[in-house]
């Protein structure tokens, strides 16, 4: 089983990202579970959402304490929240930032990947909503889900033009992370 923790701020669509990831993983043939950290939602406040992926039925109902992956939607959270807490040493943290991994004040033995998801979102979607972009980056960096399933989940959730733009942003982030 792989466990994922998503950090964001209220309004950045972290819970939606978790749901879309669970839907995409299911389409890829896995069992999945997504749930929010059950806080009282406030715009701008730090929030968390969790995802579990497994090839067996997922029965565990606790929060995620030792994630295999951490997704950080907003790099300013690094100063407010211990985003790498419990992250497995052989895990990976993916951060939305324009900076390079070595420039970030992170205490972790895990791999650190960065992507300027806000820039991609602004360029392709036209809004600084980077949750779907981060899923594209996650698909590329982790290989746990396919970009195609993420795009299908995104198109299904946001019908029409919005969904298409988001799907393009997913692909763009995926390509950027995977490289040529």
């Amino acid at each position, binding site marked *: 089983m792989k466990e994922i923790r998503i950090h964001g701020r209220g309004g950045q669509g972290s819970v939606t990202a*978790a*749901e879309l990831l669970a*839907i995409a993983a299911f389409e890829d043939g896995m069992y*999945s579970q*997504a749930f929010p950290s059950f806080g009282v939602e406030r715009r701008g406040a730090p929030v968390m959402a969790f995802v579990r992926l497994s090839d067996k039925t*997922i029965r*565990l*109902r*606790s929060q995620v*304490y030792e994630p295999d992956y951490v997704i950080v939607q907003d790099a300013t959270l690094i100063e407010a929240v211990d985003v790498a807490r419990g992250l497995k040493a052989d895990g990976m943290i993916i951060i939305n930032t324009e900076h390079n991994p070595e420039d970030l004040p992170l205490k972790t033995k895990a791999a650190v990947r960065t992507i300027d998801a806000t820039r991609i979102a602004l360029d392709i979607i036209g809004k600084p909503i980077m949750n779907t972009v981060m899923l594209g980056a996650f698909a590329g960096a982790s290989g746990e889900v396919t970009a195609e399933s993420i795009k299908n989940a995104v198109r299904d959730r946001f019908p029409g033009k919005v969904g298409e733009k988001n799907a393009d942003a997913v692909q763009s982030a995926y390509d950027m992370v995977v490289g040529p």
Partner: protein
Amino acid sequence: MSGKLKSGRQVVEGSYAVAHAVAMCRPDVISAYPITPQTHVVEDLSQFVADGAINSRYINVESEFSALSALVGASASGARTYSATTSQGLALMHEVLFNVAGMRLPAVMTIVNRSMSAPINIWNDHQDSMAERDSGWIQLYVEDVQELVDTTVQAYLIAEDPEVSLPVMVCMDGFILSHVFEPVDLLDQKAVDEYLPPFEPVSVLDPDNPKSFGMFVDPEYYMDFRYLVEQAMERSRSKIQDAARSFESAFGRYYGDLIDTYHTDDAEIILVAVGSLVGTLRDVVDDLRSKGASVGLLKIRAFRPFPADAIAEVTSGAKVVCVLDKNISLGTGEGAVCTEIKAALYNSDIRVPVIGFVIGLGGRDIPVSTVQRIVGKAEDVIKHGIKVESEFVDLKHSLVS
């Protein structure tokens, strides 16, 4: 019609899944009060009605008291009825709950289990429904979203059985199950229609053939009415089993009848829980068994009627029983399930120690490590006997001392 709703296996929110299951049961009347604490369950159902996807009459009322009161009238006139509520909303229904059961109206309600104020807290525990255990409602607790869907359909079959004719609460853990997205088989209308026949009320309000429901009775008769409710509760035991088995025949899924067991046959330590915590416990049992520990799990699916005989049978060979209660019966120092299990065993010849753990109140998370510590305490009881009969788990001692 309900053909507009997608069936089949997909990832959806728990609340949507139960709304879908309710829709497949073709309720005539849905009544709810749409304010916090409420859930997506009735929001989704009102959407189905607004979209014309289901044919139900949706009544938006001004309080939970009214929500259930509206169902009293609807159910007495022969309608299949549904509502959902949680925590304070259920408490506000308290008076009406007894009326529904006393009038033998087979309403079905989803209880999204949440804590009771004060202090104000919107998170999960079982205090709300456990506090209504004497109301005459059958109470079924579910472990995951699929069981929630399937038990919702079973609930109507049980409630409307003429030999039962009692209301049923299907209790699901707030947030943990109501807000989770996970794969679930959404039921097909035709399959549900085959499993669940239309509601044939035992007795209906009819202007052409006037009758009284819930009328005044003096001491000459009151007690006998209460006895009849208890008898119906007794009869519901076999009906809960039948509904689970016939569901298995029709849909291929089975969750136990009044209880379910997991590796209890040879277990020295038996963990007992209700609701979604059971899932976590299954993982813990598998893990500890792989390391040689003799641990098993008893899941209480029906808390009312209480499965005393089944519990006695399952625990008869154990060396210790650990009851994990997401509620506290204040003044007893332990949760309601723990008290009732001790009562169930007292007059038997089983002398197994029963220890209680009040856990997860107000949404306090229950990590695997916490459960492992409980099993460690159980091992101590086997070696040294009971030192502490019941305790609050993961208390912040610095705050309360």
